[in-house]
């Protein structure tokens, strides 16, 4: 009798042991939009033991072109994304413990939202809280996977304190972003691609397959199409004042 997880357990280096590892893991998904909803869907299907689903917003009609978890009735009723996501994911895999949190990730609740986590997915929709997450994850320490998307492009980055550069290594002086979804829009397939890449890195981290992780920042564009992995270099600069890399 094939089980729910047969087809992924067949993957090299996965098996029942890998599946058990996923089942013991707690992943915090920060942001449940085009990235977080789709990444959470993939992790729930894969059998990650516990998902904490964090978003302050409610579903609206202009979300539906890219936010695959939600349906029209969610938008019509203005359901909180955390609740709508929980309902949908519970239908997908009853074995996953789901913890909806309708809250914004901020300085005063950040540590609490990350409590007990093995891994964090950064699916936030603005730069500032991503840098807050960077600093918190360095302190705890906690690995995380960053993804972002605007228009038809985005990037994915795996961040492991003391192993990889941190987000401030890449962006030492974060300012106002040149690209914003409010002005430049988001291509639905681009959000789904970035979320899939992010979920893939998350699964490798949970399985302990560090050898197979992304090592640079993966820059992706769907329109025009390109994939390029940019390798970090300090270029003779002093170590990062935040993470020491």
């Amino acid at each position, binding site marked *: 009798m094939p089980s729910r997880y047969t087809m992924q357990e067949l993957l090299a280096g996965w098996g029942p042991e890998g599946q058990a590892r996923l089942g013991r893991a707690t992943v915090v998904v920060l942001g449940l939009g085009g990235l977080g909803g789709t990444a959470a869907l993939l992790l729930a299907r894969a059998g990650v033991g516990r998902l904490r689903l964090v978003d302050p917003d409610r579903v609206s009609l202009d979300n539906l072109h890219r936010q695959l978890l939600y349906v029209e009735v969610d938008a019509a009723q203005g359901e909180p994304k955390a609740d709508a996501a929980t309902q949908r994911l519970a239908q997908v895999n009853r074995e996953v413990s789901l913890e909806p949190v309708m809250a914004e990730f901020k300085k005063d609740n950040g540590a609490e939202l990350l409590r007990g986590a093995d891994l964090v997915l950064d699916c936030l929709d603005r730069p500032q809280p991503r840098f807050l997450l960077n600093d918190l994850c360095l302190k705890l320490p906690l690995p995380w996977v960053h993804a972002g998307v605007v228009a038809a*492009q985005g990037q994915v980055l795996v961040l492991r304190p003391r192993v990889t550069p941190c987000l401030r290594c890449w*962006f030492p002086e974060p*300012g106002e972003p*040149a*690209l914003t979804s409010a002005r430049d829009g988001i291509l639905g397939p681009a959000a789904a691609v970035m979320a899939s890449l992010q979920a893939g890195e998350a699964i490798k981290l949970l399985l302990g397959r560090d050898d197979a992780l992304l090592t640079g920042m993966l820059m992706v564009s769907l329109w025009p199409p390109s994939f390029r992995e940019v390798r970090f*270099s300090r*270029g003779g600069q002093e170590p990062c004042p935040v993470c020491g890399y």
Partner: protein
Amino acid sequence: MPPTITITVDGLAEDVPQGLSLPQLIERHQAQHKDLIVEINGRFVHPKTYDEVEINQGDRVELIHPAFGG
């Protein structure tokens, strides 16, 4: 007319004045200085070293804006 060199920016050929610095190139492209990923000939350029970088004939430059939406 100062001598020009030919480089490639984001895949497109471009003639620029010889001796152009990376910050000047960034400005020509109205790219924001901060929060940019710059690669020259396939190598990442650290943001704190932009001022020291001069653009040379034949350089392949990528100026990539990160996307911080979700």
